[in-house]
């Protein structure tokens, strides 16, 4: 059976979970490079009329890098923990550059709607969210991390709990409070 990058990434994830720090170092550029490359292609292509059209960017990156045959779901969680950080970085970077393009104009929202036009779900100003998350991290790093993993990484409560080594009920509580805090923060800066 043909095997691709996924196995390599998987073995790195396994080694990382096994406590080998060097594996993360090896992992980061791989994941980063792939996401970066794909993001580049998609963003470049979509630049003209849409913002970040909802095609396969993340999906494809995940699929290419991890496939769907990870041996254990914990590995998936750890991969997503890395990917979450990177996704955040890429999206924020993208949103910032859009904002810079329209310097002087209004803040740029990144409509992450899917093809059905269901824009409501994630119609968030990514840059403002990023800033708010950073402010949150200053008073409560764990809550900020929970949001990063859940929102940017798409991790479930259980997966988040596994990654952060805290109980699922703590994750749930952090997640609820953090969202309220962030919503308020975004509201105060006029970006909701």
């Amino acid at each position, binding site marked *: 059976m043909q095997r691709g990058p996924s196995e390599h990434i998987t073995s790195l994830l396994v080694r990382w979970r096994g406590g080998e720090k060097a594996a993360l170092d090896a992992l980061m550029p791989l994941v980063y490079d792939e996401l970066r490359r794909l993001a580049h292609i998609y963003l470049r292509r979509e630049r003209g009329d849409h913002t970040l059209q909802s095609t396969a960017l993340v999906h494809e990156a995940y699929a290419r890098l991890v496939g769907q045959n990870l041996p254990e779901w914990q590995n998936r969680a750890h991969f997503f923990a890395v990917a979450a950080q990177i996704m955040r970085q890429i999206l924020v970077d993208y949103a910032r550059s859009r904002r810079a393009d329209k310097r002087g104009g209004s803040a740029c929202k990144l409509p992450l*709607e899917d093809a059905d036009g269901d824009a409501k779900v994630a119609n968030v100003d990514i840059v403002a969210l990023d800033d708010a998350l950073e402010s949150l991290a200053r008073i409560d790093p764990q809550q900020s991390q929970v949001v990063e993993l*859940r929102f940017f990484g798409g991790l479930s409560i259980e997966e988040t709990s596994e990654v952060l080594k805290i109980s699922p009920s703590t994750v749930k509580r952090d997640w609820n409070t953090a969202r309220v805090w962030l919503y308020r923060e975004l509201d105060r800066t006029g970006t909701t």
Partner: protein
Amino acid sequence: MTPERWQQIRGVYERIVALAPEDRSSQLDQVALNDAELRQEVESLLSYERRAQDSFLDTPVANVISGTMPRSDVSVRTGRRLGVYELIERIGYGGMGEVYRAARIDGQYQQEVAIKLVRSGYDTTLLLERFRHERQILATLDHPNIARLLDGGTTEDGIPYLVMELIDGVPIDRYCLEQKLSIVERLKLFRQVCAAVHYAHQHLVVHRDLKPSNILVTANGVPKLLDFGIAKILDPSTQVAPTLLNALTPEYASPEQLRGESITTSADVYSLGVVLYRLLTGHSPYRVNTTSPADLARAITEIEPERPSSAVLRKIAEVSDPTPKEIDVLSGRWARELRGDLDTIVLKALRKEPQYRYSSVEQLSEDIRRHLENLPVKARRGSTTYRLGKFLLRHRIGVAATALVVIAITGGVVTTVREARIADRNAKEAEKRFNEVRKLANSLIFEVHDSIKDLPGANKSRKVILERAVEYLDSLAQESANEPDLVRELATAYERIGALQGDPMDPNLGEIKAAKGNFIKSIELREALARANPHNSKDQIELAVAYLDYSDFQTGVLGNPAAGLDYCNKAVALLDREAVADPNNARVFVQSTRAYTSLGVIQIGNGAGGSTGNVVAGVAALKKALELDHRAIKMSPSNMEVAGQEFVIYILLGDAMLKLGEPVAAEEYYRHSMEGMNALSDRETNIRTAGNLVVLDGKMGDVFLREDKISDAVSWYRKAHDGAGRLIARDPADQPLEHLVITSSGQLGHALMENGQMDAGLEYMHKAFDAAAKSPSQTPLEKIFQGILFTWFGEAAEKRGRLSDAVQEYRKSQAMLASAREDGANDLRTQIYYTSATDRLAAALLKLGKLQEASTQYNASRDLLEPLRKSNPGEQELLYAVAETYAGQGDVSMQLAKLASKRLDKILHLNDAVEWFQKSSTIWSKIKNPSRISSSTMEVRLPAEVSRQLTHCKTQLAAFPTN
């Protein structure tokens, strides 16, 4: 808000929010009885609760983006038709494909087949390419023990598929157990597998994923090899680079696969060794808990497997109750049969270093045959091969090539045309791997790194990437000592990494130490090259350039101009020689210009660099640089950088004049430079020239500040500040420009303050400070700038009569400058900044009546300055500092005299004061064109003031009759 406070608030909030809405208010009343802020915060959060819980952030970005993509796990294709086949059931799936049992439905044959196809949702171009590739490989393999490829095609939606022989069998390890095969039977079965793999190798196919589940044995006892899917034909034109993205199945993967190294036929030898181990002992060669792949990976790369015979004996001891199937294997007789040849054969196949394994599957199989026929096995003789292999390894890059050369030399193998071809391919492969790593390192440094460089928060990734690149380079460097072109390339790469890690203008990686190491590696390589190729002018020049880069780094980043000067002198010596040897080489003159310019800069102590304190020598070097530049311009008149250099040198000469106390001459050089640059920027819009013009506006500000024409200084600084702002708007990511904006903002603020526009001045200075303090790198130079700003803040506070605030600022300045000095910036200029801050602090303390501490501070300042004066005679900047320190000590003595109750004490202190002021006056007399603001931009008292104080002391002293 502090984290602790937030924890308190969230605790209360979470308790309250869990209550029914009608109960909340009263509960909150209780909890936050005496804490209005707490109550307000919690209420505020509560008011957002409903809106936030609604759907805010509920759908992860990833799902939103990929929401419309088909999910592969729901892609069940059972019942669908592909060509003449209908999919009956899914019998397997893996990383990229699914396998279905399918039947032919056109009635031609009654045949069931296996169909392998790409999963939906994964069909990227690359994947298709690999898939088609696999189809081609399989088509070339026709062997009774290899699952046959029957057909191939593409589905209506463009997904390629393979139709293969459907093998009805069980994995080989299970087969052996179930059939209770003897050792001899197992070995014979295994040899059939070897034959199939050897056949594939002859067809340039490496399986790479041999494991029992890929080796099925049919009911007739025929082994069939499946899944040549990850095999890559050893042909450069079609091989998909597997460098980073290697496939593997941990338990059967070879150490080199786990390490991501190059994979050759030797990897299959290893995997077959693992299979054989399992067939002979019933378990894995590695005694680890196989549910932990991390341990397994470590074992495979690190632990020597136990001898099969010992493994069986150990197992007998451990297992008290063997299953009926195990019972044969777990016997002393079985273990005895393994001991000796079979132990040796299996372990040889499992060697960690590919070159010590059997050099081909055929050799492995052959040794098993010899064992079966009671002939001596080759594995037990191996020491010649071993030594030879080792020797060759030292001299050759690719292990595969070594192994094959070893076979050829040691004989025992009939080299067929085909095998020669494999050997050839493998040698090429090894070479190719080497070049891949080389390319990879280069691409990491030059492409990947640059593409992410400007991303916010990319520093961590950048660091990883650069470190990785260095690792690759280091390994290449070890293997390539005799290839000058490669060494040159490596040196360039190290230089580049050093420059990235140590660029003072870059969003710094904080990798100063690593940068230093890489610069030195580059220099060592270049020195070796220059020594080995004394007549290669390029190698000499490149070495000089490496020296100059490192000199810049020492001076500009580490703040160590003495070391910078050493390397600069080395470069100068080399280039002077080359200029004689090769007088028509424009590059020599371009680099010589640079070298002499640096020489001047370091000695004058201009700009970022600090000083070694010989301005006059510096001026001479600059004049030489100017002369060389004129030659270079003649040789390459269209080179804008060479043309521009002339005007840069004028700026530096202006700086030197300012240091020598000649503001008028300085102004002349600056204006000269300005005219030239303006003409230049008419010819070409170049952001550097535009930047230099802005720098010049600032320099003009310096001139007028020194001449105490403050309002003129303000206009020039403002011009510089606005110009820098305009430029950075054009290119917000430009780090040097950002530096310029920050510096000019600070200077404008300072001048405004001196001009009495206190509020505006403070605003600009604070802006500059905030920007500088935010920089993540905090290089010594950035610290020095902040230290200066603190001194200015102190001066501002003093001007507002807030003495104790001023004391605070001066202390901060001292601490910041001390920290810069600790970080290695211990040049003359930094020390002068430090003593100036100290003097300011002492003066303020004196005004506050803290006589003792003031005296201590002045003494400390003097202790630092006097030795410096000895080693830097005539240094104007230093003279200002010394004059001020002496005068300050005079102030202290005056104050002591005032406070002394005894007449004699008064006289003694007054005498001291006279002496100090006298000394200060003497120093002042050596200063040309004394200025109220020293060239280190600190306010000092002018000589007239010192004279006045001197006279005053003398008058007081005269009031006491002597004796």
